[in-house]
């Protein structure tokens, strides 16, 4: 009886997973064929699959340049998120005057969409002379509030006695973070890496506004440009989408265990 229940549960999960993965499969299938996505009746299996659409994408636009730009910006964002968010998260585990107000400010800032703050963000970036630069591209994502709370939750889960023991051993606050808290917060680090990478990798509006030269554009902008050039070649367009998605999926798969743990570590007590 129990075996039957397990089988039914697994069968349901497989069915639901298949439904959720179907759009990804359809993108991949279209990328390896030149089929029209509106063809009726639709074919489940690809006919004469090939990988030449990926070659077209690589050469028809400066894909390696866009890839390099996206990688540099994402690396900047990931590194700064880990550093700044860990510092902010550690500060928020302490008691100080105005802590409650700062927490409320952070939470209220999360409610404001980025589109509403994009003009002041642009003006600040312009005043700093960071338009059309890698640092400018990464600027709004250098620290993110959600990830600060992830670090805060992870640091609060570390027993206070451990931090006290480190202090008695003579460690400074910086070294407490670096030597004690960070090694015990791998899940929070992984969550920061995944979220920061995906957000910066997929950013479209901000790079669209602050880049002036095609050589500074990132992959999502390249995708839009490619669409304007190649609107009749669905296969190549979907191949581009797959090539843009692949690094995000790779990073997520690499860090998924710690990512899930990091997201749920603050959800329960004990």
């Amino acid at each position, binding site marked *: 009886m129990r075996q039957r229940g397990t089988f039914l549960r697994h069968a349901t999960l497989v069915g639901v997973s298949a439904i959720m993965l179907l759009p990804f499969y359809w993108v991949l299938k279209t990328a390896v064929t030149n089929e029209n996505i509106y063809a009726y009746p639709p074919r489940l299996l690809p006919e004469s699959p*090939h990988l*030449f659409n990926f*070659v*077209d994408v690589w*050469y*028809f636009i400066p894909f390696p340049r866009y890839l390099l730009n996206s990688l540099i910006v994402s690396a900047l964002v990931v590194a700064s998120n880990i550093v700044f968010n860990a510092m902010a998260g550690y500060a928020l585990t302490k008691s100080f005057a105005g802590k409650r107000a700062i927490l409320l400010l952070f939470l209220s800032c999360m409610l404001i969409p980025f589109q509403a703050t994009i003009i002041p963000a642009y003006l600040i970036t312009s005043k700093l002379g960071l338009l059309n630069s890698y640092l400018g591209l990464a600027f709004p994502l250098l620290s993110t509030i959600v990830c600060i709370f992830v670090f805060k939750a992870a640091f609060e889960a570390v027993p206070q006695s451990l931090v006290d023991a480190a202090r008695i051993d003579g460690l400074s606050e910086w070294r407490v973070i670096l030597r004690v808290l960070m090694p015990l917060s791998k899940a929070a680090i992984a969550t920061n890496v995944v979220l920061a990478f995906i957000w910066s990798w997929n950013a479209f509006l901000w790079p669209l506004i602050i880049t002036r030269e095609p050589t500074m554009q990132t992959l999502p902008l390249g995708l839009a440009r490619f669409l304007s*050039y*190649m609107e*009749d*070649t669905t296969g190549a367009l979907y191949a581009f989408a797959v090539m843009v998605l692949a690094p995000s999926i*790779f990073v997520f798969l*690499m860090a998924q265990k710690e990512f899930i743990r990091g997201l749920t570590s603050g959800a329960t007590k004990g």
Partner: protein
Amino acid sequence: MPHWATSRWVIAPLAIAGLVLAWNGYVALNDGGLVEGQVVDASGRPVPNANVILLERHFVMHNERQRTRTDRAGRFRFAGNDNHSLQLEAEAAGLGRTERRVVRLWFRAQNVRLAEPLQLAGKLP
């Protein structure tokens, strides 16, 4: 072996870097830009002095890039191709013109020899 060396964060990027290096090595050894093939008539006999046209793709258009003539054995050879998506067409007086053969390459300037000859509709006398 140190613990960090067996981490997937080390192994996976290194494996990808290795594949990229290997691929670039293969490309460096095979990017001479040579396109070779043969033109035959309807009965499969080589056609000498046939005109062969190489067209290369620019987004959605194919533009003529080079022309050459076949030798006595019906063979032709283009050098200096730097595209990855080509079309080849052959024509000979009295034998007509072949359909355009699409030649897709894995990288720019890949050396390629056509497995199947370009076949004209007419027969040599």
